[in-house]
């Protein structure tokens, strides 16, 4: 599929959106990890190996 030629402004805007989306996804991953620990409690680390 042919990609349209992007102007410098469009490329800059796309990069800005990508960075924001990446940060949002990283924050969500950390947030859900932390909440899982809080909801289940510190006992999650006490499992037998």
């Amino acid at each position, binding site marked *: 599929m042919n990609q*349209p030629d992007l102007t410098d402004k469009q490329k*800059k*805007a796309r990069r*800005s959106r990508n*960075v924001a989306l990446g940060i949002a996804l990283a924050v969500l991953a950390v*947030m859900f990890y932390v*909440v899982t620990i809080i*909801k289940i409690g510190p006992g999650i680390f006490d499992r037998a190996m």
Partner: protein
Amino acid sequence: MAMTDEHDALAAPASVDVLEGDAGDFFALLKPRVMSLVVFTALVGLLMAPGEIHPVLGFIAILSIAVGAGASGALNMWYDADIDILMGRTAKRPIPAGRISADTTLAFGMFLSVFSVATLGLLVNWLSAGLLAFTIFFYAVVYTMWLKRSTPQNIVIGGAAGAFPPIIGWACVTNSISIESIVLFAIIFLWTPAHFWALALFKSEDYGRAGIPMLPNVAGERTTKHQIVLYAVLTAICGVVPTIMGFAGTMYGVFAAILGAVFIWYAVQVWRMPDGDAKMVPAKKMFAYSLVYLFCIFTALMVGALVTKFTGIAV
């Protein structure tokens, strides 16, 4: 129902295939200034509520409420793009300015709505999630699609959407709705008409050009000024109700009474302003003070609640 009769999607700018909008434009779709008020009042509701919530869950609750409020702002901008382009105050928003397409905004708003409600429900509780969903629906559908273009009482009824956040914040902690949180709702609900009609007075040409039936355009300046004084008085009375009901202290009550008296004074200055005044200075001052009033009232409630929580002394 005249929900879509006057909405002219064709009047909005043509969709842009390649986005020029950056992250800042998407953030602007969330109406950050409205969102800051929502965050603040929801936080006050959350902190005033009896009981405990884990700080991380409290943070996520406020974040979800903020994102939900932002989502309703994006849906509002999607639907109102045809009139936003006609008003100086809104013409530079991302859709009328052609930086983000209407379709993208709709998808963005819908996604954030579902995501914020689901997150609040799964991580906090489903009562607060249900209230957030209702708030988004009320703002995006009842206010934006229906009331805004059909009645001069648009912001009176629609103001309920902006008044819900403290109830949601309270419900995040208690999983219930109580009379105290309804009083917090009532303060914002009664404050909204005086706040918005002050703005509508000095922006009436903008609203008239867009065909929005704001009270000054439909009923005239005199009626609007009467209504501003009426709602300022009701707001000032409601502002001291937390002390009368005993969930805020005497110091708060005195502070709220003074703030309320000044609010009424500003409303009277608007009322005394000659009809047809070109500069509308008293209306502009009233609008600015209304923001100070709400901020100070909720700050005082929050400080009082925190002092009581940690010292047991009612202030």
